[in-house]
């Protein structure tokens, strides 16, 4: 167990290292000059050179990358500004540290992810189990059809149409958007309902299909058949045995999806104007804010890698057959 965690952790760290290097070097092709941005309107070549030196952008690329890594573990200076570890850089567009900006945006993305996950898993898995238990019946067919259409929908379409109908036309829901749960839980909840539901409509469908097929597969497994042959009641067979087996697969899928969440959140956050990490990434691209782009890409990558490790771990807990 411990060895497994160590091995996976090391592997994850190496992957992150590779991702950071690739990101750093590729994005250096972006036509952005942080020194010019900090120089103001009366910018003389001398001032510009001084700022470049201060920021360290006049040094060789490898040296800069080294500084970047150094900053993550040990903090570093940007001109007169000290950026404490873990320092992912300093945005010259917003004049803020990348780490604190990310921390600032994190609660919004987290709210979106947690709420949507709960909804997606409850609805998706629930309906999937029902469909599997009623396999072949009318309800199953109807659910399967709805799930197919749902999984073919896009957040930007469903979200905007729902917003138009529920918010703008009939005022059933408040305007979507993020406000901190700490300041006003009611407002937080109201603003997130539409984003959560939209994600649920689009993604739960996948879980309905997936749970259904996993359940059906699990029912055919030997250990379930054994259980049934032993004369256990069908409810116990379904829920204790088949469901448990199916859940490993569903959970794996969920972990992988969660890892990709930041990518898909780009659309969700844009559509609902949620100032989260994904929207930060998009606006940094528009602003050619290199340190911020590197920071968000790295955090998103870390998220993916962590979710993958977590999936493996959960796997072990749920399914005793998996050896670590």
């Amino acid at each position, binding site marked *: 167990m411990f060895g497994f965690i160590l091995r996976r952790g090391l592997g994850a760290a190496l992957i992150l290292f590779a991702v950071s290097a690739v990101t750093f070097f590729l994005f250096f092709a972006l*036509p952005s000059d942080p020194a*010019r941005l900090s*120089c*103001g*309107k*009366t910018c*003389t070549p001398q*001032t510009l050179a001084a700022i470049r030196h201060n920021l360290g952008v006049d040094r060789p690329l490898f040296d800069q990358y080294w500084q970047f890594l150094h900053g993550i573990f040990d903090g570093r200076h940007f001109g007169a500004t000290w950026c404490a570890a873990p320092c992912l850089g300093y945005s010259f567009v917003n004049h803020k540290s990348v780490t604190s900006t990310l921390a*600032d945006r994190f609660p919004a993305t987290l709210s979106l992810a947690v709420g949507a996950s709960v909804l997606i898993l409850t609805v998706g898995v629930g309906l999937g189990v029902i469909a599997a238990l009623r396999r072949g019946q009318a309800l199953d067919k109807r659910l399967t059809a709805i799930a197919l259409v749902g999984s073919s929908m896009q957040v930007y379409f469903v979200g905007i149409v729902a917003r138009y109908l529920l918010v*703008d036309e009939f005022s059933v829901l408040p*305007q979507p*958007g993020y406000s901190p749960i700490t300041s006003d839980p009611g407002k937080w909840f109201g603003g997130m309902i539409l984003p959560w539901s939209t994600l649920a409509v689009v993604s739960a469908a996948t879980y309905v299909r997936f749970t259904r097929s996993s359940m059906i597969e699990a029912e055919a497994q030997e250990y379930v058949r054994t259980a049934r042959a032993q004369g256990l009641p069908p409810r116990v067979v379904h829920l204790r045995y088949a469901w448990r087996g199916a859940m490993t697969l569903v959970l794996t899928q969920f972990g992988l999806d969660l890892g990709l969440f930041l990518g898909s959140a780009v659309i969700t956050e844009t559509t609902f*104007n949620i*100032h989260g990490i994904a929207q930060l990434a998009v606006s940094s691209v*528009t*602003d*050619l804010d290199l340190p911020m782009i590197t920071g968000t890409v790295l955090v998103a990558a870390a998220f993916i890698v962590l979710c993958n490790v977590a999936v493996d771990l959960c796997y072990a807990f749920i399914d005793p057959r998996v050896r670590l």
Partner: protein
Amino acid sequence: MAISTSKHRSRSALALLMLGTLTISAGCSASSKKTDASNPAAKAAAKQTVAIGTAVDSKGPDPAVPGAKSGGAVTVLQHSDFSHLDPARVWSSTNQTADLLLSRQLTSYQQVGDTTKLVGDLATDTGSSPDGKTWTYHLKDGLKYEDGSSITAQDVKYGIERTFQKELSGGPQYLQMWLTGKDDYSGVYSGPWNGQDLSAIQTPDAKTIVFHLASMHADFPFALAMQSYSPVPKSKDTKAAFDQHPFSSGPYKIDSHDIDKGMVLSRNPYWDPDTDPVRHAYPDQWRFEFGAQEVDINQRLMAANGPDRTAMTFKVSIGADLAGQVNSDPNLKARLVNQVTPFSEFFNINTRRIIDVKVRQALLEAFPRQQVRQLFGGPVYGDFTTTILSPVTNGYQDYDLYGVAMTGDPVKAKALLAQTSNPHPTIVFAYSDDPTWQQAAVAVSQALDKAGFTVVTKPISSKNYYDETQKVDNQFDLYWGGWGPDWPSASSVIPPLFDGRQITDGGGNNSLFDDSGVNAEIDRIQGLADLSQQDAAWGVLDKKIMQSAPVIPWVDLRQVSLYGPGLGGVHTGFIGTCYPLDVYVK
């Protein structure tokens, strides 16, 4: 300075402007409809003048707004936080509007009804000068900061010295250049932080301040009205931190400022209305909320639920998407600011690449001004113009040199091109790479195609748009530009835009226009001591420049914004944004 656009029309202006009386009755909401936005022909009427007020005009208090009362809280919804509040760094119209509440200047503009006057604010009058070079001001009695300490002449001097400090970039540079006589003024004086003193400003006592300019500037009192030149006591200079939390000399002070989220202002109890001829402070509190998208801000203002009943915005305009709905609903229309601002927008023609005047004129004649305006919201975006100066600038004269339809006239343009060496010139049209401009590029290239031009459309990342188009050696032929004069005089429009000797990277002359006759005339006019003679001469020069067609005049922008039904006294001010100083809670 130039104005920027992003999506729709949020302009984070680098520039600001001043300006005078907007024709429209500045008083109250409902009556502010003399110029109906749906009628593009209805232009701001007569030529406006911002007169220089007397010492009597400069006495407080500001004449009351009819029906106004004190109390209540106003919510201001803004797309983003103010990029700067430190007066030394304030230049964009939104930032200037915020500083109206937090700072005072030696001079400022008093708006009463339809009249705008320049009056003494901290000073007892708008200044006196025997020669246009030495200007003397006396401070009023009873001027106080937010902590009750007195505002002194030394503080005014220190505030201006701070604008020389390199670290405090972003503000205008007029005084810095005029006091030192150098465009690159930092070689002469680099700011007060290392203990240096600016000898061009003398403060013989706590109430007297004397400016020694390097050359004559008849419009010096106007320049002093810019928010950048506000008093700052040396002991309260928190340097970089001043930007988030300036020390107030105005009617309000900052209670809290949560960057990018919100800010709350409460009364400065030491501010004495009897000393202030230009400010009202009716509400007890101002609450700013930052971060919502413009469409959401407009939705909230339309719904006006709860605290939003007393909400407004400084800058967010209703876009085309809501214009129809708002204009057809009398309840909404009754609480809409809809006024022309001093901002003008136009299309620069690169006169270094397109040397033949006939080709430039053909571009002007073929250009689809109406089609492009429609993409930006049509009549709610702005009023068509055919002149360089805007109707709210002193010296403005209405004329239409080319008499061409706003939809463009390909036939006329073709005829002009036929007289040139190449009837099918290639034109590189550069635009900011956002959805609205992408569509505008389609309209522009279709219209120019019809006249025989070959059009290359070139998107530039919005972030780099100014850098790229303001380069002297840019490779583009036609590109959008905007301008807001910093005070209501043509001298803050024509020289920066068309003086050939002011062509630099990042400058205002982006058509790269350099005509020796025009340059000489600019010098002659600036040498006139009488401002009204200057005004008349600028009007004539405006027309003369347009004969060479260095730009295609397009629109004078409108500010079209909703506000909550619980507010009164909302209208635009000399800055062009919704003006907070007459606002009251009903």
